[in-house]
C-alpha cells in the first residue's frame, strides 16, 4: 500500500505554491459558462407566480387564460385551493413558454383569490411575537446568579444582528430537459453528485436517469444543495412541453426572499468579571427568526469561543415569522454569535477599563485552543499596530472623524467530507483525475490538480481534471468547509494508487522493486537515483494498451492524517466614523487564520479576503427589510439590499498561520471560518471610535447616529 501521507513541507514542489486559480482567466474573461448561461438547443423559459401576501390561503386559482396564451406550453399550479401560504413570494404557479416575456405575461393572466390571514414578519421586538415565540429551554452550568452577584464588574447589554440573505450573484435555478425517461439537468448547485438524485426523487424517477452537470456556479454560500421546487417544476414543465429544455431561474426578488436567509440574532446579555479581567459568568437571552421554522441556536455556541466560562445560563427563543425559510449561510449562526459575544465581551472590557486585547488574551484559557488564540491575537495586533494605535473608548481627537480599533474571534470545525476519486493514467502519458465534486469558487479545481501533480511528480498542465458531473465518482456537497479536506484526500489516495500500478508496470525495466520507485520531476526513478529513470512518457508507454484506472476515497472515520477539523481565527479592524453623518469607513481589516496544511496559500488567502468582504457587507450595510403592515420584503432588489462595492472595503491583510504544527494536522477547510469574526471586529472598532455601542447592526448612518444621539432604535 502506498504511503499516503502528505510529503513533508519542505519537499513539496507543487503543493504549497501560490499558483493562480486554473479557471481565473476563463471567469474573468467571461469564457466560463455558468449553468444560467447554458442554453441548449430548443430551450424554452419558465417563470413563477409568487404570492403577494405573507400569510394567506388560496381560495381559488384560474389558469385558463394563461393556458390559452399563444406560446405557453405548460402551466402548473403549485398551490391548490385550500393551501395555506406561509410567506411572501411563495410559489403559487409555474409557467413555461416559448420566451421569457410570454411566460411572464402568462403569469399576469392567472387569477388567484386569496383569503388573507394575520402575519408576523418582524422579530426584533420579542414581546410582540406572542405565540410565535418558542423558548427552547434553559441551559445552565455552574451558578450564574451567584457568580454575577459576586463579580466585581457586571455588564448588561442588548445586541442585534438582522436577517441577511445569500444574495447569490447567479440566482438559484436550473435548466432541465425531460424526454422519455431521461433527464438532462443543468443546475446551479453546491452538490453536483447529489442534486441529480434529489431531482430524481422529486419527480419519481430512478436516480440514475438524471444526468446533472455544471462547470461553474455563481455563488451558493450554503443555499444551493437541493434541486428545489424550481428544479422539480421545471422538469415537469419540460415533460409537458414535449421534452424541450426549460430554463427556470429565480429573479432577484425571489432570490432575496425565498432562496434562503441567514437568521437574525437578538440578545440581552449579562456578563461579569473579576477586577483582573477574569470572566466568571455569562447569562444570555437570545432570539432569532429563520422563517416559519423559527430558528434554533445550539446553546453550546454561547458564549462563543469562550465556551468554558464556569457559570453560564443560556436561553434561546425561536420566533416563527412569515418569511422565507433559512438555509445554511457560510458558517451557520457563527457570525451572529461571534458578534453578540465579542461585542458583549468588548463592552465588559471597556467597563473594566481594560484593553480588549488583554482581556481576550486573559480569558483565552476559556477556549479550547488557548495557545492558538493567544498567538493569533498577538500576530493580528502586530499587523494592525494595536499597541501603538489603540486608545480607550472614544477617539478624543478634534473634528468629526473618529478612528478606532476592534477585534473578534471565530472558530469552525470543517473536516473532510466523503469523497471518491478516480485517477486514470493512459499509455500515452496523459492523466485524468475525476471526481463528482464542484468548484464553488473556492479553487477546488486548482487544489485537486496541485495534489495530483505533486503526487505524480508532474507539472500542473499534465493533469486533466474532470469534475462537475454526477457520472463521476461521487463526492460530497460543498458545505461546512469540508470540500478541500475531502477532495484533497481522495485525489491523493486515488492518484497514489494509480501511481503504484505504474510503478509495478515499469519496475522490471528499471530493475528495482515497485516499492523502491518514486515519481519526481516528470520521471519515474529508483528512489534517490536519478540515473536509473524513465521519463513519464516512456514509463507510461510500458502500459502497452492498458489504461490504469484506480480509485481512492476519503474515509471519514479514518482520514489517515490527510485532513482534520477545528480551527480558530482572529480579525481586527481599523475604522473611521464620521460622527456628523454616521458613515463608517473600513480602513483596514487584518485576519489571522489557521487552517492546517495549506495546499495553495494564494487561494487560501482568497477565501479569507472573500470572507472578510462578506463580513464588511453585513457589518456596514446588509439587512433584509420586512414591512409589518404589508407583510412584504421592501428591499428585494440590489438597490436597497446593499452590498459593499470595491470602493467600500478598505485594505484587507491576511495572514495564514502556516506553521509546522498546523501543517502536520493535514488539510482543514477554511471557507467558513474566514468570514466569522469580521462583523464583530468592525462593530467593536466603531464603538472604540465613537465611544458608544451601536447595539443593532448594520452600522448604517441611521443606527450610528441613533446610538450617538441616545435614540432608541425605530
Amino acid at each position, binding site marked *: 500500500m502506498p504511503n499516503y501521507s502528505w510529503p513533508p513541507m519542505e519537499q513539496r514542489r507543487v503543493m504549497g505554491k501560490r499558483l493562480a486559480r486554473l479557471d481565473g482567466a476563463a471567469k474573468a474573461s467571461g469564457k466560463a459558462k455558468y449553468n444560467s448561461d447554458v442554453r441548449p438547443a430548443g430551450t424554452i423559459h419558465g417563470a413563477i407566480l409568487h404570492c403577494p401576501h405573507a400569510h394567506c390561503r388560496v381560495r381559488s386559482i384560474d389558469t385558463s387564460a394563461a393556458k390559452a396564451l399563444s406560446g405557453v406550453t405548460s402551466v402548473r399550479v403549485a398551490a391548490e385551493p385550500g393551501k395555506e401560504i406561509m410567506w411572501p413570494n411563495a410559489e403559487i404557479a409555474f409557467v413555461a413558454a416559448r420566451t421569457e416575456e410570454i411566460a411572464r405575461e402568462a403569469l399576469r393572466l392567472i387569477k388567484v383569490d386569496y383569503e388573507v390571514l394575520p402575519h408576523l414578519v418582524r422579530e426584533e421586538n420579542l414581546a410582540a411575537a406572542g405565540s410565535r415565540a418558542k423558548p427552547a429551554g434553559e441551559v445552565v452550568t455552574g451558578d450564574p446568579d451567584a457568580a454575577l452577584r459576586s463579580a466585581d464588574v457586571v455588564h448588561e447589554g442588548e445586541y442585534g444582528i438582522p436577517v441577511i440573505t445569500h444574495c447569490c450573484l447567479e440566482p438559484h435555478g436550473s435548466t432541465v430537459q425531460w424526454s422519455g425517461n431521461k433527464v438532462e439537468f443543468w443546475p446551479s448547485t453546491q452538490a453536483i453528485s447529489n442534486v441529480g438524485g434529489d431531482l430524481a426523487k422529486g419527480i419519481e424517477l430512478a436516480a440514475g436517469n438524471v444526468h446533472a452537470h455544471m462547470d461553474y456556479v455563481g455563488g451558493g454560500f450554503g443555499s444551493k444543495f437541493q434541486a428545489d421546487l424550481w428544479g422539480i417544476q421545471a422538469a415537469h414543465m419540460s415533460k409537458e412541453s414535449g421534452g424541450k429544455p426549460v430554463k427556470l431561474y429565480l429573479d432577484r426578488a425571489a432570490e432575496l426572499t425565498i432562496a434562503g436567509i441567514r437568521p437574525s440574532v437578538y440578545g440581552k446579555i449579562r456578563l461579569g468579571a473579576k477586577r483582573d479581567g477574569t470572566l466568571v459568568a455569562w447569562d444570555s437571552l437570545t432570539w432569532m427568526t429563520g422563517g416559519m421554522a423559527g430558528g434554533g441556536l445550539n446553546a453550546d455556541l454561547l458564549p462563543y469561543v469562550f465556551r468554558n466560562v464556569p457559570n453560564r445560563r443560556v436561553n434561546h427563543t425561536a420566533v416563527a415569522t412569515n418569511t422565507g425559510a433559512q438555509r445554511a449561510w457560510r458558517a451557520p449562526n457563527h457570525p451572529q454569535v461571534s458578534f453578540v459575544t465579542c461585542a458583549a465581551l468588548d463592552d465588559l472590557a471597556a467597563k473594566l477599563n481594560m484593553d480588549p486585547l488583554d482581556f481576550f488574551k486573559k480569558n483565552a484559557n476559556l477556549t479550547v485552543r488557548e495557545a492558538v488564540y493567544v498567538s493569533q491575537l498577538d500576530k493580528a495586533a502586530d499587523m494592525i499596530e494595536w499597541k501603538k494605535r489603540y486608545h480607550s473608548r472614544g477617539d478624543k481627537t478634534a473634528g468629526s472623524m473618529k478612528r478606532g480599533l476592534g477585534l473578534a474571534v471565530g472558530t469552525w470545525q470543517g473536516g473532510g467530507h466523503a469523497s471518491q476519486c478516480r485517477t486514470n493514467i493512459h499509455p500515452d502519458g496523459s492523466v485524468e483525475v475525476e471526481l463528482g465534486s464542484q468548484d464553488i469558487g473556492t479553487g477546488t479545481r486548482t487544489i485537486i490538480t496541485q495534489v495530483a501533480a505533486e503526487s505524480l511528480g508532474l507539472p500542473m498542465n499534465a493533469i486533466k481534471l474532470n469534475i462537475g458531473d454526477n457520472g463521476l465518482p461521487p463526492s460530497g456537497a460543498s458545505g461546512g468547509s469540508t470540500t478541500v479536506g475531502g477532495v484533497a484526500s481522495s485525489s491523493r489516495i486515488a492518484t497514489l494508487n494509480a501511481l503504484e500500478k505504474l510503478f509495478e508496470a515499469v519496475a522490471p525495466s528499471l530493475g528495482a522493486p515497485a516499492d523502491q520507485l518514486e515519481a519526481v520531476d516528470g520521471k519515474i526513478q529508483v528512489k534517490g537515483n536519478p540515473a536509473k529513470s524513465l521519463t513519464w512518457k516512456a514509463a507510461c508507454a510500458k502500459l502497452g494498451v492498458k489504461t490504469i484506472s484506480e480509485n481512492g476515497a476519503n474515509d471519514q472515520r479514518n482520514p489517515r492524517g490527510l485532513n482534520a477539523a477545528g480551527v480558530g481565527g482572529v480579525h481586527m479592524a481599523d475604522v473611521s466614523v464620521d460622527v456628523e453623518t454616521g458613515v463608517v469607513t473600513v480602513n483596514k481589516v487584518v485576519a489571522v487564520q489557521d487552517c492546517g496544511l495549506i495546499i495553495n496559500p494564494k487561494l487560501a488567502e482568497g477565501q479569507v479576503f472573500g470572507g472578510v468582504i462578506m463580513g464588511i457587507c453585513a457589518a456596514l450595510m446588509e439587512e433584509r*427589510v420586512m414591512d409589518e403592515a404589508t407583510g412584504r420584503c421592501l428591499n428585494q432588489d440590489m438597490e436597497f439590499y446593499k452590498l459593499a462595492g470595491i470602493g467600500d472595503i478598505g485594505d484587507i491583510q491576511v495572514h495564514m498561520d502556516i506553521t509546522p504544527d498546523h501543517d502536520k494536522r493535514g488539510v482543514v477547510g477554511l471557507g467558513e471560518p474566514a468570514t466569522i469574526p469580521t462583523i464583530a471586529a468592525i462593530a467593536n472598532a466603531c464603538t472604540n471610535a465613537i465611544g458608544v455601542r451601536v447595539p443593532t447592526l448594520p452600522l448604517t448612518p441611521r443606527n450610528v447616529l441613533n446610538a450617538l444621539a441616545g435614540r432608541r432604535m*425605530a
Partner: protein
Amino acid sequence: MQAFEYANPMTVKDAVALLGASWTDANVLAGGTDQLSLMKDYIHTPKRLVNIKNIKELAGIRKAGGNLRIGATVTLDELIDNREVRMAFPSLVSAARGVGSPQIKNMGTVGGDLCQRPRCWYFRNGFGLLAQKNGRSLVDDGQNEFHAIFSQGPAKFVSASSLAPALAALGATVTIAGPNGTRSVDVASFFVAPSSDQQREVDLKPNEIVTQVLVPMSGAKNASYEVRLKDGLDWPYAAAAVALRMKGSTVESARVVLGHVGPTPVVAEGAASALAGKSITEEVAAQAGESAVQGAHPLSGNAYKVQLAKTAVKRALMEAVKRA
C-alpha cells in the same frame, strides 16, 4: 413588462405628437435606466415608448445668452466631462458624479434624471406613489428610514434627482415642449408634491417633453454635498446644494437647497437669507445648517436625517468658499 409599441421620432414636434393624453398611452424613453425598470415592475405600462435620443435639438451643451443650455438628452457623463460645466458649476458636476455607476452615467440623461420616479420602496413595490392602504400612510408607521423629513401633505417619498437641488440652487429653468408650444419653469417649481396617486411629482403632462435646462452663468460660487454610504450604486441619504453671490469674502445673496429629504428639493430660504452679509466660517455654515432644518418633521424612523441635512448644508457651504 407589458408589450409596447416603439416610436423613434427625429423632431420634438413629432415626439410630442406621438405622446398621448394619459401616462398609459405613451412614455418618453431617454437613457431608459429608470423607465425600463419601471416597466419591468409594471409601475409604468405605456402602450408606446417614444425614444427621444435621436432628436438632434435635444442634444448638446452650449452657451446661450447669459445661460448655459444643457440639452435634455445630454448624458450625465457628458455633463461631467463638459469644460464649461466644470468651470462654472462644480455643484452640478459633483452631483452628477455621485450617480449610480459608470454604466448609468453613460446612459442616464439630464432630462431623465429630473423626470425619474421616486425610489420609495413602497412605490416601487406597487403600493402607489403615496403608499397608502385603506387611506392610511404605510410610510408613517412603516419602514421610513429613507423617507422625507419634510413631508408635504400625504407625499412622504423623497425626490430622487441629485441634479435637481444643484440646478435649483443655481436658479436654473427647464424648458418644456407640448402640443401648444413651449413653456419654461424654474427647476425649483418644476417639482411638485402630489396629493393623489394619479398625480406626478413633476410639473409635466403626459404629452410634454423636457427639452433643455438653462443655467444662468451668474458667477455664483456653488457646491453640493451628499451624504452617501456606498462608493457607488447607491443614493444619497441627504444632500445640499448652495450657490453664493459674493462680494469679496462676503455673501451678497445665497441659495440653499436640500435634496433627498422631501418630495421636492427643499429650498431653505431662512438659511439663505441668514447668510447674506456674512462671510462663511465653520460657525456660520453650521448655523445655516441649523436653520435649514427648521421645520423638519421626521417620521418614526428617520430623525437621523435631520442631522444629515444639517451637515450637508454646512459642508456644501465650506466647499463652496474653499474654491478660489
